[in-house]
């Protein structure tokens, strides 16, 4: 019934789109622009909700044809098993091609060194940028949203990166109308963020509307966790807990999915999408503030990592 004219509040036009329809249409436009203008695009896919929504939008954008992109997963080696399982299932279901850039392989080969705090999130940058160079990807879709963080609020939908994948906020192209400029020199690439204008709540409401399946860790479940830096981290082979930290079983869920060493869980009894949406709408903490240790390292942590080539 969505195509049928519906009167929305604040407008007298029967042609007004709901905010979810407007955001969906814009994101699809972005996917199709990239398909039309680039040679070798790839979707960064972590198995988290934002990349799952990106995949869903891409499927809709090119239906009934297949998605003309492959997927790239930067595997930290500290993944939640449920998420890897989801990733492989999605790849098989839609006959996609998956590239994996492995942080563990870089560590094993001596090209990266484990950090004292055990966090592998910052270590993703090198395998990511080398994978981009190796496969000669010229457009790399990321699920980043401008509402996540104030450095991201400055990020363009089409964000030009140099051959080292670096972001220079002072040298960004103005983004005018819906005219995205994807011109780049050989070796450079463009990071593309189709969910730029979405908020966390939009993502969840869209997941509910479209009945998109998610890894179970997004819903409340009992899990062995321990406290570190004010967050609940999952106990596991990646290096937690230390001797001074004690494990307990709690009813928790995840708001974001990333490396186990730095992604915190929140106490929650939300087992359904409705309950999750109500919980997020009422939360007084941002998604990253509640669950990401690495963003707390310094005031400009995200900006600094983005400059180096992080997504």
């Amino acid at each position, binding site marked *: 019934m969505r195509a049928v004219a519906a009167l929305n509040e604040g407008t007298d036009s029967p042609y007004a789109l709901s905010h979810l329809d407007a955001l969906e249409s814009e994101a699809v436009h972005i996917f199709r622009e990239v398909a039309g203008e680039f040679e070798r695009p790839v979707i960064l896919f972590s198995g988290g909700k934002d990349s799952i929504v990106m995949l869903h939008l891409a499927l809709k954008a090119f239906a*009934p044809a297949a998605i003309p992109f492959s997927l790239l997963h930067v595997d930290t080696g500290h993944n939640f098993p449920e998420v890897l399982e989801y990733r492989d299932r999605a790849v098989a279901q839609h006959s996609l091609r998956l590239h994996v850039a492995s942080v563990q392989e870089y560590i094993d080969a001596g090209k990266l060194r484990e950090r004292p705090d055990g966090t592998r999130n910052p270590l993703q940058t090198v395998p990511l940028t080398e994978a981009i160079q190796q496969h000669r990807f010229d457009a790399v879709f990321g699920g980043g949203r401008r509402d996540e963080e104030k450095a991201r609020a400055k990020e363009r939908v089409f964000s030009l990166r140099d051959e080292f994948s670096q972001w220079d906020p002072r040298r960004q192209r103005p983004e005018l109308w819906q005219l995205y400029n994807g011109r780049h020199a050989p070796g450079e690439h463009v990071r593309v963020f189709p969910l730029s204008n979405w*908020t966390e*709540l939009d993502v969840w409401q869209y997941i509910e509307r479209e009945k998109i399946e998610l890894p179970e860790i997004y819903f409340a479940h009992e899990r062995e966790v321990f406290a570190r830096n004010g967050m609940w981290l999952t106990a596991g082979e990646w290096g937690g807990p230390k001797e001074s930290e004690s494990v307990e079983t709690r009813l928790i869920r995840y708001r974001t999915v990333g490396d186990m060493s730095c992604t915190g869980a929140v106490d929650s009894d939300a087992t359904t999408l409705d309950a999750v949406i109500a919980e997020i709408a009422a939360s007084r903490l941002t998604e990253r503030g509640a669950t990401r240790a690495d963003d707390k390292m310094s005031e400009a942590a995200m900006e600094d990592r983005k400059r180096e080539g992080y997504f």
Partner: protein
Amino acid sequence: MSTTTDQLAGISATTLLRFATAGSVDDGKSTLVGRLLHDSKSVLTDQLEAVEHASRSRGQETPDLALLTDGLRAEREQGITIDVAYRYFATARRRFILADTPGHVQYTRNMVTGASTAELAVVLVDARNGVVEQTRRHAAVAALLRVPHVVLAVNKMDLVDYAEPVFAAIAEEFTAYAASLGVPEITAIPISALAGDNVVEPSANMDWYGGPTVLEHLETVPVSHDLTGCHARLPVQYVIRPQTAEHPDYRGYAGQIAAGTFRVGEQVTVLPAGRTSKIAGIDLLGESVDIAWTPQSVTLLLEDDIDISRGDLIVPSGDTPATTQDVEATVCHVADQPLTVGQRVLLKHTTRTVKAIVKEIPSRLTLDDLSQHPNPGQLVANDIGLVKVRTAEPLALDSYADSRRTGSFLLIDPADGTTLAAGMAGDSFATDAATVHVADDEGWDF
């Protein structure tokens, strides 16, 4: 956990308003933005804590709300905003995307960037200074970009004793100026962003004002217009051809409807070639529909198997724009390197990018007094001027006055890909449109 209606803001809101703010450096724009975010409960505890922490480490006793929005190292170091940032907030009635644009004179291009997608612009004025050059510049950019709604926020009313005559005089002067540029709707609101008067809550200090607060106006301004009178346009982005056993003959033309509506059964023409066919079906992201409209992303299926590719424009056969290789437009120059007569550029219009050459720069516009300086030879960063561009291939270009989406284009440096200029085809200001109308047939190629 107890929740209030405020905290659940946005969960039920269904419409989206994109708006931009403009103001000079000390007009209190950051305070206004901070207050909108703060008073609409869009600033969360951890963000506020981060601001408090950063403010303390700078030796400030009270939290500096500007730190909420200044996200880059250089901005915090210099205490200025160097680039457009996009902010998101919601009330129970509507969701908002705010293009927060810096106010420095040298960043006119940033206001152009923010205004290009905005349906509303808030122009801030300091009540003590009234309408100044910068105010006229902001009004002119809003008029040039054809932002449908303009709000004049007369700020710092607390510093002029909340005096009605001060507000009335500024509102009258601004309204007369903006209306002469063709701004279709102007709403003037007296505020104090610092004290919170008329931003989110109605002011107890200005009984004489009977209009809406800034937020109330943002929540209720109409976001869509009647599309029945618009020229329907679909720039083809991508041709979808599954070539699978299930869909052996599917050939769909994917794109976002740039203007108007399309219906199944409608006779259409494909430009620039001029071939015609009939719409056999419309796919709205996997759903078959009879009618679709802007800004929906759709896939059109046509009855005839004609040659169509990315960059073509599908329009109703009875409503075709002229095609031309000679583009006359107003451009805002957005790059650091200049735009000169004789320069070879790329022109990106909708989904079509063509080679072009700058034939003439007839004039440069001074936004302060709208005077024209003839034949400047070149345009530099933040200049606005008229240009004549010759393209290598014909373009189906609407007047920007008719369609912000199909009347706009970019000029791009072919050497390094830099976006040089933002272009708007046709007459600059709405007032000119009534008097100047070019009706020659030379641009037609068929």
